[in-house]
């Protein structure tokens, strides 16, 4: 294979040596639980005079009665309270040198806010008022509905949208993790009352986590958070989702998008998430396959063959499973050839141990990327908020590189065989239907015409 050429025969002795990747250290962590159940973590990190705030509640995109309600709940939060409309709220936050974004993964809704540290107390008060009593004013909500419908129309015109929706459907079936994006009809039908109900049921202080990182004095910050968030009342329990029973398909589901100049290839399988014994091994296997500049997908499919621009693999960590995916966009005429190389790389990873040096490079790459991500206030706050949602904490982030070091090539191969093997992956493609004929020699193909609903 020319992708591996030259790795052993070159004299690199003139290149200056480097040291080990430094360990992750998260120091000064303090925690408390408010009387109403809110779990608070504060980390001083005075690099710049700012403070980063994350609050998460179990109101993710897969929660609630419908995708429309879940997404409109997130879009409706910044619309303000009875006292402050959306423009006034935005003004107040900007006066603090701040920002506010609401985001969701499958499981949780995150309020991500920041401010100059001198304004931290005012920020907490604004956010507490908002979390306790969002108003979802009917007039502004109508605009958000129009935005969502327009956003969905635009998203459906992109090739990745039907690919992701199709893969979710094939792997998760009727489980909410596989729920399709909302239809215009359900968006139109979801009114203010539905959001008030969903907010009341899912914004539970007992299931809420607050993470603050920045130029703060932890004791004082805790007291400020307590003052702001103590009045928050809500249900002790929030119904969770049923366990994932992952399915899949041996057929390539090829969604017709006539006129496409590329085929989008998306292969995936349901695996473990944070804390599972296979998780670190699968993280390593996924990175060897398609994480970063020197991964196998990059070396083979891009740097050797020139089939694609940014082939990559990743592991998305949901609460109930981890979705491992490999994806790329390739020009129509190499659809079959590119799929063949992908299958080769998946099979190689599942059948042969990763050579020592390559595994060592991947460990260093992952450890280093973690160190770099965690050195900003925002990066650390986001990472902490995410692992805390899984019941883990800063020590999990600190132990990561040690866990990578302790995971052997055999374990990586075992994880790849179980979760990434060609037979474990379900493949969806979106492209011009003429390209599908190139695949028939390699796998059974189901051609899907129409809106891409599988």
């Amino acid at each position, binding site marked *: 294979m020319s992708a591996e050429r030259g790795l052993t025969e070159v004299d*690199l002795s003139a290149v200056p040596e480097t*040291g080990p990747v430094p360990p992750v250290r998260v120091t000064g962590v303090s925690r408390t639980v408010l009387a109403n159940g809110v779990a608070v973590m504060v980390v001083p990190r005075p690099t*710049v005079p700012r403070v980063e705030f994350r609050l998460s509640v179990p109101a993710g995109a897969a929660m609630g009665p419908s995708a429309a309600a879940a997404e409109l709940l997130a879009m409706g939060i910044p619309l303000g309270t009875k006292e402050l409309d959306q*423009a006034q709220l935005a*003004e107040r936050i900007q006066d603090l040198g701040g920002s506010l974004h609401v985001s969701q993964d499958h499981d949780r809704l995150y309020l991500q806010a920041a401010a100059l540290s001198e304004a931290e107390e005012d920020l907490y008060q604004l956010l507490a008022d908002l979390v306790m009593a969002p108003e979802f004013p009917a007039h502004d909500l109508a605009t958000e509905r129009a935005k969502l419908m327009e956003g969905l*129309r635009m998203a459906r015109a992109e090739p990745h949208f039907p690919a992701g929706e199709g893969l979710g459907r094939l792997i998760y079936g009727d489980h909410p993790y596989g729920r399709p994006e909302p239809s215009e009809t359900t968006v139109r039908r979801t009114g203010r009352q539905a959001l008030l109900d969903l907010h009341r049921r899912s914004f539970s202080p007992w299931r809420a986590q607050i993470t603050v990182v920045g130029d703060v004095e932890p004791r004082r910050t805790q007291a400020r958070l307590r003052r702001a968030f103590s009045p928050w009342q809500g249900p002790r329990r929030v119904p969770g989702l049923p366990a994932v029973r992952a399915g899949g398909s041996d057929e390539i589901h090829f969604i017709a998008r006539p006129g496409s*100049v590329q085929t989008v290839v998306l292969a995936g399988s349901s695996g473990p998430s944070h804390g599972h014994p296979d998780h670190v091994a699968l993280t390593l296997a996924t990175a060897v396959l398609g994480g970063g*500049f020197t991964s196998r997908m990059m070396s083979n499919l891009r740097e050797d063959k020139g089939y694609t*621009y940014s082939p990559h693999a990743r592991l998305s960590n949901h609460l109930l499973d981890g979705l491992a995916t490999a994806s790329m966009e390739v020009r129509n005429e190499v659809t079959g050839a590119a799929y063949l190389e992908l299958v080769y790389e998946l099979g190689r990873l599942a059948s042969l141990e990763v050579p020592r040096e390559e595994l060592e490079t991947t460990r260093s*790459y992952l450890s280093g990327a973690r160190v770099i991500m965690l050195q900003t206030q925002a990066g650390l706050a986001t990472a902490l908020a995410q692992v805390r949602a899984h019941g883990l904490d800063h020590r999990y982030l600190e132990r990561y590189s040690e866990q990578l070091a302790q995971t052997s090539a055999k374990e990586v191969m075992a994880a790849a065989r179980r979760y990434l093997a060609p037979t474990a992956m379900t493949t969806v493609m979106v492209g011009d239907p003429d390209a599908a004929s190139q695949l028939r020699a390699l796998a059974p193909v189901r051609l899907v015409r129409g809106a891409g609903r599988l």
Partner: protein
Amino acid sequence: MVLSPERSSPTVGVGVFYRAGFRLEPEGRTGFAHLFEHLMFQGTTNVPKPHFGNLINSAGGLLNGFTRHDYTAYFEVLPASALEMACYLEADRMQFLDLNEETLRNQVDVVKEEVRVNVLNQPYGGFSWLWLSQYAFSTYPNAHNYYGEFADLEAATVRDAREFYETWYGPGNATLVLVGDFAEDQARKLVERHLSSVPARPAPPTPALDEPLPKARQEHTRIDPLAPTPQVAVGYRTAPFGQQDHLPLALAARILQDGRSSRLQRHLVGEQQLLLHVAGGPHYPIGDSFEFGGPALFTLEATPRPGVTTAAAVAALDREVELLAAEGPSAEEVERARRRELAAYHAGNDSRLGRMTELGVMAAVHRNPQMVDELPQLFSEVSPADVTRAVREWLRPERSTVLHWQPPAAGSRQ
């Protein structure tokens, strides 16, 4: 060379900024500056193709590059112990780049896939940054397709690459930026050891880029077969760096469109229900107010509500800009915009890449890296009257170009 030690975490950022961007790629070679960026990752005679990335990843580092209008940047963020290696590798590819037919053809293929994924296979591909400048300017450097016509990409030769490399990628046209965990004298020694030996290659002066300001509004339409709904962009010629209106226009951009408290959001998205989305500013959506060394646009992009025409959307944007020009902003609006600039400044400084990019652009494009740390003060000196003056001078309809981005007419879609 710019050094900015900051020792709170054990990493460094290393950037090399070459004053060679889209605008100076030769005619008949559209897209070449960006294609050449790809070639800078293809190995040298000392460190062949896959080793450059392997060495950086093995050290626990990240790497990438980006091409802009007036510069191209290459960077690594890595553990502090890898600083010397990064200096070595940057010096190495400044001198010994292995330009050959095989990697050139490979990267032409890769760049064509990049154009397909980002432009040709996407609704709204390249809207509006890639297209608006092609209508708003008239001379080749400012008005060509920066991603590259496929015919031009395919026609690129190793000889073109050598010539571009020798002309624009010498030390005389490069700015080295180091940020992060190092002592200044130690960094100076490393740079001395590895980069001082690179033979001088003085760069030719950058070609003249300026164009006269337009005298009448131009309107253009592009049909996007993949777009389900229309969008529109208005590009005004913006004040150049150093001109008295340059910083006031950055604040005007925030007052107009930044967040739900901004004028366009409040009035046009909220009260009048004409738009669903609006965004913009100087150089939008590329970088910030300091990206450009030549003529540039202050862009406003809008998505009209269903049933509202792009012409009506433009008329609404015009009314709001006119109102701001006529009445000026309130003191509170200006103060809020300043606080946003301050917050953005601090957030940028908190990451190695952010700090390195600010310093690199200001040093390479404007020869003034000190200005990065003067920005909070400079913005605090901008008055509401300055913003009013800048809006009146620059955000005039007759100095703007409008690009209507339309779906195919009903019935003509495949």
